[in-house]
């Protein structure tokens, strides 16, 4: 079991003066009113806050935190697959620098009673922003541990009152080649599209993320709003979302459409189902340096206790 309520504090997190100060600040801000929370929880939430972007107001800790070392902010923000901003892991951090994420609205439509639009500021203020420390496993066999900020996707979906016909949720990234330069070239079928089954979308682990490391999302990580589904390969966690639709049918999705034999619709992390070109049995945890080896990949990225029941009776080899 890797989700636990409290975790021990590492000495590296309490030694630095700046972090100490952040903790003081946090105490003063009064959020510490959260009953029963041990100091280390809060410290971890705010440790190494990079101080580069706007802090998330009203950041709440949550019980969802893996018991593993959090990946450096530097690595999380310089090693990105965000094809809209170019190929190559280090490209998005440079080419997305000027990307403007305000104003930003998300349109919600399809099989629901109350289709409409919601502004990013409203999203930030009306949903409780929690810190969720999740393992993030890319289909390319690398992983990170990311202190996301976000809220359950289900909380937002419910507001639009999906009907009984809503079997799937479909997401779309912004399509604007002027702002997302690599959309001028092909490579992928823009706009990027992803989808979840309704039960997956409503699962408490599934979040819409607005930030990481206690601050709003850096552009290269999918600002201002992205999906995070920690038991699925990273490409499911679509970035810079402008549209959410409820659908009766399973929607076509980007990578699945490009190479159906390599990227499934479900894309659940599964060490037993290899990508045709490489093994998924192990992955490399980023930030470990040259001599750190690979680690064994776990079923559903270690979230089997929480999500395995969603797929009971399903052949996960065929529905990869």
């Amino acid at each position: 079991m890797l989700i636990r309520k409290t975790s021990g504090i590492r000495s590296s997190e309490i030694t630095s003066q700046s972090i100490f100060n952040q903790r003081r600040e946090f105490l003063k801000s009064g959020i510490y009113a959260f009953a029963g929370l041990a100091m280390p929880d809060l410290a971890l939430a705010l440790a190494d806050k990079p101080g580069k972007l706007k802090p998330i107001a009203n950041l709440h800790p949550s019980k969802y935190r893996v018991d593993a070392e959090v990946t450096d902010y530097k690595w999380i923000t310089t090693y990105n697959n965000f094809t809209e901003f170019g190929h190559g892991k280090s490209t998005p951090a440079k080419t997305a620098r000027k990307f403007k994420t305000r104003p930003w609205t998300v349109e919600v439509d399809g099989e629901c009673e109350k289709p409409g639009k919601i502004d990013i500021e409203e999203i930030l203020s009306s949903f409780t922003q929690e810190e969720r420390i999740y393992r993030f496993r890319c289909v390319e066999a690398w992983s990170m541990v990311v202190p996301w900020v976000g809220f359950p996707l289900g909380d937002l979906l419910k507001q639009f009152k999906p009907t009984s016909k809503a079997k799937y949720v479909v997401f779309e990234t912004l399509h604007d080649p002027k702002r997302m330069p690599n959309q001028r070239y092909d490579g992928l079928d823009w706009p990027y599209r992803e989808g979840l089954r309704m039960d997956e979308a409503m699962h408490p682990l599934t979040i819409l993320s607005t930030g990481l490391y206690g601050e709003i999302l850096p552009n290269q990580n999918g600002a201002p709003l992205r999906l995070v589904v920690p038991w699925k390969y990273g490409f499911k966690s679509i970035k810079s979302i402008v549209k959410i639709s409820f659908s009766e049918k399973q929607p076509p999705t980007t990578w699945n459409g490009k190479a159906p034999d390599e990227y499934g619709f479900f894309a659940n992390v599964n060490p037993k189902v290899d990508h045709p070109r490489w093994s998924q049995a192990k992955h490399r945890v980023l930030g470990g340096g040259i001599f750190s080896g690979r680690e064994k990949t776990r079923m559903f990225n270690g979230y089997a206790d929480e999500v395995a029941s969603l797929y009971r009776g399903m052949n996960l080899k065929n529905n990869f």
Partner: protein
Amino acid sequence: MRVANKNIVIGKLLLFLLCLVPALLLLWDALQQQLGANPVEALLHRSGDWSIRLLLITLAITPLRKLTARGWLLRYRRMLGLFAFFYALLHFTVYLWLDRGLSWMEISVDILERPYITLGFVAFLILLALAVTSTRGMMRRLGKHWSALHQWVYAAGLFGVIHFLWLVKADYREPGLYMAIFIILMLFRAGSFKKRLQRAFSSDALRKLSSILRCYTSENA
């Protein structure tokens, strides 16, 4: 055009240093921890990139020599080829050791079952055979078979490029460029292509190679 031997020696020294630059930069970046979030991948990619680049440059020497009528270019070809092999060796070592942690089960599955690795491996074996037989002594001993054997460098180039094309997820620009260069280089040779192919596959040449390799390994045993 003839170039004095002294100039060739200086030229070779410069080329040697130039070919080492990517390796030194890699080493420098590794020591400075400047290889990013995934240093093993960076080492693997940069060594692979330089192997295929140097291999294509090696293949370009003959057409360039003919186009420019500069015979001395040929004198640099062996060094370029050996550096292509050097970077392939680095690439393979990074893969075996840093990437796969010398886990021989995984490695053999990769080589046997993943076509892009299989092709890379075959390209590496070819480069290895060519490097081993690149000395003057080997050239003499293999006689006319030497050039037949060294026709396989084209196969190594082709396999190297396909290896790259196959491993790419969506961005085909760089491997596509290399494939285009490879095809253009091949077109230069189209005339004599059939003859070369026959020579490369003549059983005579292969037999000669195996006997040479056998005596080479026993000499070194």
